[in-house]
């Protein structure tokens, strides 16, 4: 059953002309990148208004990406926790995570714009693998920037990208993780902007990226809403997703943003929690909440999960946090490891460490959630993390 692509919800609509969601977002980039951002905004706006583009995107999502992804009832773990647990199975997508949705959309758009090359940043490697996959499919060349530390943590994904014909370049500056990979990709984009599209992997960066990436992921929430209705006859009480930059959460939340009875919950790593804390920062082309010191230097995040190892979050999440439409909570690495094992053992589903954050929050909040229907976005599968978890557990 293929789902139509719905109109964007009112509570998560388009940002204003300058790319702001409330006070967050914008386009804080150097003059050399302004024209590229404007070109992209125009191209995306036109493409998204074009039914043939949307149909082509949907056909790719379904025929190549493996959509629609199912929603699975987890009776065993649900019973154990005293609630009704439903998982939106983005882990079953081609390349193993939700990332493919955005990447197919952007690659299609890049082709429409006449670009021949993709560049991307990656943390855990999921977005890098997805971009490398789309580049292979579309016959485009591809370079992925990845923090040197992450290249060690996720060696298998580095090899996957190379197998797909992509060049992986280490980001050697700063903490040598996701934040620095973003810096490197943005630097590279400036000098290659003519034939290159920067395929940004989350709902972050300068306008139009936060809006465009969320829009490409709205299919998650659109499908999930209908599937939960089909399964249970009513809306869930909560929609829960992990948040690093926040793309899978944005896609899920979009499906329920206009349903006031549905609580929207973002689970952040304790070492990278940024939502709603202190004053916002301006970095990576946007104004949003970031972990920063008292003078405004951006701090390094620390998380067991390379994909959430980011000190900020997308501007629309900052807006949702500030307006209290969504709630954001943090979970510790220990809680995540426990969730990772428990879901594997009770449901036969090995989650990505990123997605295990959402499960960890549900476990932690189970008393308050007793008897409720909880929809969790299983944003990715855990194969890539098995070795890392094995090493940690055997220590």
């Amino acid at each position, binding site marked *: 059953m293929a789902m139509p692509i719905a109109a964007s919800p009112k509570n998560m609509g388009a940002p204003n002309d*300058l790319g702001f969601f409330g006070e967050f977002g*914008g*386009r*804080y*980039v*150097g*003059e*050399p990148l*302004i*024209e*590229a951002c404007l070109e992209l905004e125009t191209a995306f706006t036109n493409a998204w208004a074009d039914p043939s583009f949307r149909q082509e995107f949907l056909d790719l999502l379904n025929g190549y990406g493996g959509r629609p992804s199912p929603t699975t009832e987890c009776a065993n773990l649900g019973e154990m926790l005293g609630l009704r647990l439903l998982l939106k199975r983005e882990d079953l997508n081609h390349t193993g995570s939700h990332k493919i949705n955005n990447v197919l959309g952007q690659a299609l758009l890049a082709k429409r714009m006449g670009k021949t090359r993709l560049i991307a940043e990656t943390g855990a490697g999921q977005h890098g693998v997805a971009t490398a996959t789309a580049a292979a499919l579309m016959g485009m060349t591809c370079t992925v920037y990845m923090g040197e530390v992450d290249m060690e943590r996720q060696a298998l994904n580095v090899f996957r990208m190379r197998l797909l014909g992509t060049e992986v370049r280490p980001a050697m*500056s*700063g903490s040598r993780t996701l*934040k620095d990979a973003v*810096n490197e990709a*943005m*630097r590279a984009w*400036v*000098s290659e*902007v003519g034939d290159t599209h920067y395929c940004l992997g989350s709902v972050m960066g300068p306008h139009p990226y936060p809006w465009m990436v969320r829009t490409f992921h709205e299919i998650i929430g659109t499908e999930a809403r209908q599937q939960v209705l089909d399964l249970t006859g009513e809306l869930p009480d909560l929609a829960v997703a992990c948040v690093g930059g926040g793309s899978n959460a944005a896609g899920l939340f979009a499906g329920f943003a206009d349903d006031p009875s549905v609580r929207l919950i973002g689970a952040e790593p304790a070492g990278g929690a940024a939502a709603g804390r202190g*004053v916002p*920062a*301006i*970095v*990576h*082309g946007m104004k949003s909440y970031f972990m*920063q010191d008292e*003078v*405004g*230097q*951006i*701090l390094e995040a620390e998380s067991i999960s390379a994909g959430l190892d980011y000190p900020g979050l997308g501007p629309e999440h900052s807006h949702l946090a500030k307006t209290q439409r969504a709630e954001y909570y943090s979970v510790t690495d220990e809680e995540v490891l426990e969730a990772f094992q428990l879901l594997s053992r009770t449901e036969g589903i090995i989650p990505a460490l990123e997605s295990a954050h959402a499960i960890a929050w549900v476990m932690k909040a189970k008393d308050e959630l007793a008897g409720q229907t909880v929809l969790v976005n299983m944003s990715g599968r855990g194969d890539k993390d098995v070795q890392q978890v094995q090493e940690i557990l055997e220590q």
Partner: protein
Amino acid sequence: MSASMTTSNTRSLRGYLTERSASGRLLMPYVTAGVRGDWLELIDACIDAGADAIEVGIPFSDPAIDGETIQQASVVALDAGMTPAQCLSELAKREFGVPLIAMTHYNLVYRYGHERFAADLVGAGCWGTILPDLPLDVAGDWITAANEHDIENVLLAAPVTSDERLVEVVENTGGFVYVVSTMGTTGGRDTVDDAATVLARRVKALSDVPAIVGFGISNAETAVTAAEAADGVIIASALMRRVLNGDSTDDVASLVSEIRVGLDEAYGA
């Protein structure tokens, strides 16, 4: 001309640069605050070597527009504990004979507070700011606060900047237009793109605001090429490379002297 000759009520970075450029090309060296202990002496040495103004870089953790050299200089300065407040208070204790222009990323200004930052810039001898990640569309609040303290906010123009947008840059910039010579990050290069000359000509065709070229200038030869259609050049990474290599202040300043001589020979002193 000495900066101390003018008061905060009458000073004008644009006026100063326009007057200076009447008799030759302007030379604006860049120094990262705190890149080493004697960074203030480094500024003095650059002025003695013929600088018309100095760009003072306040280091930021995530300098997205900077190439490897300025990134490294920023890391060194941050590791040494440099902060915006310390930078401005150290500058405030000295008298420099030329205007200073603070260059940093916008988050440090936002966090410091527009009003307070503008006021402290004045005390530090700064006449302007360069905030490369604050394009004109979102610069309004800062420009308003800055102008109240006679701080001029310099906007950048890039080779890809459209004609329509360039008009806005020229109309809204303070002090001068920072002509980005190339589509890339900061960093010394062996040659300077024709794009610098083309862009400088486009700016000059629109306005008499000074146009100063930066990014990629590494020596007298590239400076002379870059300055052809412009009013002057900025030299940053090539200087900081020498500093990071541990060169003496004299050796760093000698590069400024060489460029000064090169510009004066080519375009008159």
